[in-house]
């Protein structure tokens, strides 16, 4: 310790203080400040670039999501359209069937009506013909039977009775 103190060189201390403080001030102005500023600036620019890249990536992801959504929507719409078409087709078919059935029923009933009418007309005609034939028969019978009075009356009654259809 004593040796250290006795060897202590004030001159060297003085120059060291002078040179070192001068060096700190000079380097601060000409080197450290510009270097640290440049490094900071570069770091912030890198950070900005990275964050903007991240943002772009997110944007792309959201775009992709949108695309997916749109695609999904389109698919759903197609599905709905197909379904609708299918149901409407079925409906149409059912309706057509029903219509056809109705028409058929109508035609059938019309035909039945016509048949009924024809039948009635035929019956009427038959009746008329039968009546005429009966009259003719009756005329002939009457012509033959009119010789006897009782017989005539019985016959008429019997005929009338039979004739009630």
């Amino acid at each position: 310790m004593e040796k250290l103190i006795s060897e202590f060189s004030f001159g060297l201390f003085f120059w060291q203080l002078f040179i070192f403080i001068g060096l700190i001030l000079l380097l601060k102005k000409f080197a450290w400040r510009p270097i640290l500023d440049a490094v900071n600036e570069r770091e912030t620019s890198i950070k900005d670039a990275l964050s903007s890249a991240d943002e772009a990536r997110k944007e792309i992801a959201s775009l992709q999501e949108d695309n997916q959504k749109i695609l999904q929507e389109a698919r759903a719409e197609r599905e709905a359209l197909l379904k609708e078409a299918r149901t409407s087709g079925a409906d149409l078919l059912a309706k057509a069937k029903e219509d056809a059935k109705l028409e058929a029923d109508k035609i059938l009933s019309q035909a039945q009506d016509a048949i009924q009418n024809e039948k009635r007309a035929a019956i009427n005609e038959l009746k008329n013909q039968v009546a005429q034939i009966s009259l003719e028969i009756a005329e002939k019978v009457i012509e033959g039977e009119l010789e006897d009075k009782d017989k005539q009356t019985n016959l008429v009654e019997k005929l009338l009775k039979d004739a009630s259809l």
Partner: protein
Amino acid sequence: MPKKLYSKFFIFFLLGLTYISAKESASGGDLKAEIKEYILHHLQDTHDFTLLSYTDEQGKKIHIGAPLPVILWDEGLKIFSSSKFHHGESVAHVGENYYKLDHGKIYKTDAAGTINYDDSHHATNIAPLDLSITKGVVSLLFTALIMFFLFKGLADSYKKNGMVAKGVGRFFEPIVIYIRDEIAIPNIGEKHHRRYMGYLLTLFFFVWFLNLLGLTPLGINATGNIAVTFCLALITFVITNVSGKKEYWKHIFWMPGVPWPMKIVLAPIELLGVLIKPFSLMIRLYANISAGHIVLMSLISLIFIFKNWFGSSLSFMLAFSISIIEILVAALQAYIFTVLSALYFGFAVEEHDHDDH
């Protein structure tokens, strides 16, 4: 590969030069004592820049190097060349005064150059205020110049090269960023670190470069000099205490969170700690670098003591490996000094937003 080979060759060359400077005259006297004297001499600052010295056939000492200016304040400024001392062998006659070198110190003497010693072998002559440009000062100036041009070049290369460092700056830029991100910000905090960056960066590179310069065969030993490390520690001490906030002083004089008798006991301990912290910085750097120089030079000297193939080559291998370790120590000691300085600044500006402690 050729580059690697080249650098290996360069290291061998440097080591080779170190031998030559270590190889002082072996003629007469005890070689071991001479080596010891030489190593002690090397650890001290000198008034001339001697690269190597030897004794020629006539027994005359030859020094190869350059004289440096001597600046004394002795009732007026006295400036003269250190060549007047003839490496401490003669008395320098300046104006009406006579000066002589004794163990690296300049004393005022009579015309014959008598130096009187007291009982404990201390010179009793008047020692004038010595502000000479010594070998140490030259190495400080040299390092300062290198640093200025190196880092100014790095700063300018950003402007010219679109925010990207160019050339040798590419090597130093990551170190600058490391000091900011791993030393300053974790120890001082994001908020205050910027204020201390100038000092911490200058400190780290200055100590590192001086340590490395000490490993060259130029025989420089600046960071192994107590005056230099004292100055660095003093600046750390002053910055710490000037930037000390209320919390810092409160922790020293009236430690919060402990019972009051303990506060009284802790205050002197903490106050002592304020001084011990920079003191340990000073001693650590000085001792590590001095020890490194002593070990390295002793191992190199062993080559000349052994003077046989086996011992000398063993010493050479040891010296070689120690040199490599010393390169690591050069960076490590600079790092430790910087980290601890940053840590002390961190204590000074720390803000507690919690009461418990």
